[in-house]
């Protein structure tokens, strides 16, 4: 059963349509991520959910209750929505101790002193902050500050948690730790998470479902993380998730060649359906191309960069440059070496960018 429903929600800032008729249903207890480039409208959508922005069109429901509606011009104020929210810049109050930060929502709700103490302590415990409860936030690290914000937002047991790029201001190691902790908190408190991020790894790690958005919060794909990664619905999603090669090809005698490089040899014999004279674009991840000394599509190593556990190659085939990533322990090619490209896991997209099953 849907817990949160967005119906045709639209938001304009002047002539810019930030969110364009977005429709979405989110199940209770689900963790859904809005993933997209900066400025695509994902944060605006979240702020409309929170009640900080009015809607130009559409309505938002939680359960069967309307909380925002442009038709009725009704907006439940943010403070009445009972949502938890965590912001990118932490937004913990520097003049209050850790304890008072976390107790604030409970004090506002008029709970008794003993209840406040109990619930705050519980939230602090699960956020790993019990030892720091009397400290002031500015004495703590970024990770700790974000823990305060998390504890504060779970202290009153909200059913919906809004997370606005909560890990972007943290260093990479802390980010990984916190991803895990957010997931743990969700398991324990069983709230619905709506998570905004531009970091695909974060979205993959946390979500039950990822909504990939382009500008205008236009939904490009709404699917499980595995499907988003393995079957990107269109060129935009393929390009946004992970590294990508987009290669122009030509079809000759039921064989596919890189464009203008027939002498290099065929890429594959599997020809996807296409209009005559309009071959689809080949998309392929650099990690799913292997380098072989003999055979394959013949090219020359133009550039080679060591990235730690992998080596990043740029191989030129005719006028085309192909990016390849291989494990550092595999045999190494040097710049200038001839080599062969062995493709696997090919994806095809037509001129509109849509996926071609093949």
């Amino acid at each position, binding site marked *: 059963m849907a817990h949160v429903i967005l119906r045709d929600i639209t938001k304009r800032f002047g002539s810019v349509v930030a969110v364009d008729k977005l429709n979405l249903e989110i199940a209770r207890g689900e963790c859904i991520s809005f993933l997209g480039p900066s400025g695509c409208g994902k944060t605006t959508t979240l*702020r409309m959910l*929170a*009640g*900080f922005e009015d809607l130009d069109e559409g309505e938002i429901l939680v359960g069967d209750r309307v909380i925002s509606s442009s038709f009725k011009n009704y907006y439940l*104020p*943010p*403070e*009445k*929505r*009972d*949502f*938890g*929210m965590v*912001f*990118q*810049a*932490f*937004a*913990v*109050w*520097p*003049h209050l101790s850790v304890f008072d930060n976390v107790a*604030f*929502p409970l004090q*506002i*709700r008029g709970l008794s002193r003993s209840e406040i103490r109990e619930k705050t302590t519980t939230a602090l415990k699960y956020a790993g902050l019990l030892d720091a409860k009397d400290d*002031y*936030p*500015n*004495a703590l690290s970024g990770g700790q500050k974000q823990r305060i*914000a998390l504890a*504060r*937002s779970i202290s*009153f047991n909200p059913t919906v948690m*809004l997370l606005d790029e909560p890990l972007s201001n943290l260093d990479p190691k802390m980010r990984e730790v916190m991803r895990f902790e957010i997931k743990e908190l969700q398991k324990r408190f069983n709230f619905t998470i709506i998570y905004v991020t531009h970091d695909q790894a974060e979205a993959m790690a946390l979500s039950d479902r990822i909504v990939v958005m382009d500008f205008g919060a236009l939904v490009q794909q709404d699917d499980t993380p595995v499907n988003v990664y393995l079957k990107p619905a269109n060129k935009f999603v393929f390009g946004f998730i992970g590294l990508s090669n987009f290669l122009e090809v030509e079809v000759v005698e039921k064989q596919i060649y890189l464009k203008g490089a027939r002498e290099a040899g065929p890429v594959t014999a599997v020809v996807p359906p296409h209009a005559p004279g309009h071959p689809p674009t080949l998309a392929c991840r650099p990690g799913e191309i292997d380098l072989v000394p003999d055979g394959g599509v013949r090219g020359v190593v133009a550039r080679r960069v060591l990235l730690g556990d992998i080596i990043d190659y740029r191989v030129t085939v005719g006028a085309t440059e192909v990016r390849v990533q291989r494990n550092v322990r595999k045999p190494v090619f040097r710049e200038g070496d001839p080599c062969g490209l062995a493709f696997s896991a090919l994806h095809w997209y037509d001129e509109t960018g849509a996926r071609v099953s093949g």
Partner: protein
Amino acid sequence: MTGTDRKFGLAELLLLFSVLVLVVVVAVPILLIIWNAFVVDGGLNIAGVAQVLSQPDVFQAVVNSLVIAAAVTVLSTILGVFFAWLVSRTDLPFKETMKLLFLVPFMLPSFIGAIAWKILLSPRAGLINKGLMSLFGTEQALFNIYSLTGIIAVESMYLFPFVFIQVSGALERMDPTLEESARISGAGLLTITRRITLPLMLPSIAAGALLVALYSLAHFGVPAVLGTEAGIFNIPTLIYQKIYASGGRFEAIRAGTILSSILVIAAALILYSQNRILTAGRFQVIAGKSVRPMLLKLRGLKYPLLALSVLYIAVTVLLPTVTIFLVALLRTYGLSFALENMTLHNFTYILFTMKLTRDAIWNSFYLSLAAALVTMLVGTLISYVIVKMRVRGKFLLEFLGLLPFSVPGTVIALGVILMWSGKFGVNLYNTAWIIFVAYIARYMAFALKSTSAALEQVGDSLEEAARACGASHWQAMKDVVLPLIKPGMVAAFFLIFLPALRELTTSVLLYGPTTRTIGVAIYALNEDGETVYAAALSAVALIIIVIGQWVIKQVTGTTKIAGGGS
């Protein structure tokens, strides 16, 4: 580069020069004041100090200064915080315009404001009082501006922008998600204002309030214009009174030094607490993503509050300014503002005929120009040493650099009198030079503030990159640092030039027969009952200030208000 092993290089030379300037211009005069106040015949003389302080008029002046400062601080803080909140946290219409308008009282020299209010509200001849008395048919004036209340009200009108600037700036820099997170936690706007916004603004409010206190405590202009008539003196006006009544007798100077010492100590305490508040790290509010802050919808109160704001500006800025200009056009003071009573003669007379005013305009111009130029250049140098150079003994300069901020104009005047009246071989008394030296001391703080802020914007790596490209220290300074801090230097120049042009507090203790300044001339004309000429010269000063503000905006591209310190 060979400089690393030298014992005495450019850095040390610059440091020495900077220290020397601050010692001669600021430190020694202050020390002389303290010395003269507490030391008599080589021995500490606490009994003498107590005896002076227990004189009724001295004691009363100290009390008055404290009462005025306390009341002005409270009133200015309320006004400043309220208007700052109104323009930055509500949906008040025409906010940007209102914000600029609230800064205008800062430009208006407060003693000119006081003269205007005297014209409007003096008990017998005040225009408003006369109007109200004939309206109600009473003989009793409704308002008496010659009172502590009058002084407090007029000072607050022109000092509240100190708080307004601090608080509206802090509200704008504050990360809006701090308020949003309170809102999503369930708090309404009133609760957020009370429990989140106001506490977070507290350091800025306190900083602004302390500036007002510092300024009001040592303020000369308004009490001089409005208090003297009713026998109300504060510390600066009593110092002036004593020194002028006695013609510079030793007892008067000594009483002056004791009163000045009180001002210095109070100022040091105020600045110390301000520093403590501002550096208390736990209040730092770092701005995050720039999301527009939540605005309180005023709904029905929208236009009443706009009207209130406009009315406030109209009463505190427009009314006094119009009064000054109208009176400046009158043939004789006391006539009605009918067209047949109007003339431009007052203006032509003070600009082209009257020696007193012609001298004053000329003196103010060249003194301000010279002081602004020299102070700006020396201030840049000192800031450069403080901000950019690594040199032993810098702490001394850092300490001396704080002094100009804490020394009120009256104290500086007394200090330079003690130093440059021949006791130490140089007698500048009654010359323009003594005012020039005093202006440098008085405005050094402005130069240091503006140029050090500019220098802090220039990352060390920029200069280091120039050095790495082969530029010498001097070339790096000339080709990289100077062009980058030029706007700061230009701003510093105008921030000194404009207030100096209408300076009163310091000049009034230092002027000689031929070295009156515009401020002194306006004050003297007003005291002598030449109200129309005082108004005309005030009008000229206001026109110059407006033109100056326009020039600043053209040159620096931003609206910087040159105010404070008349």
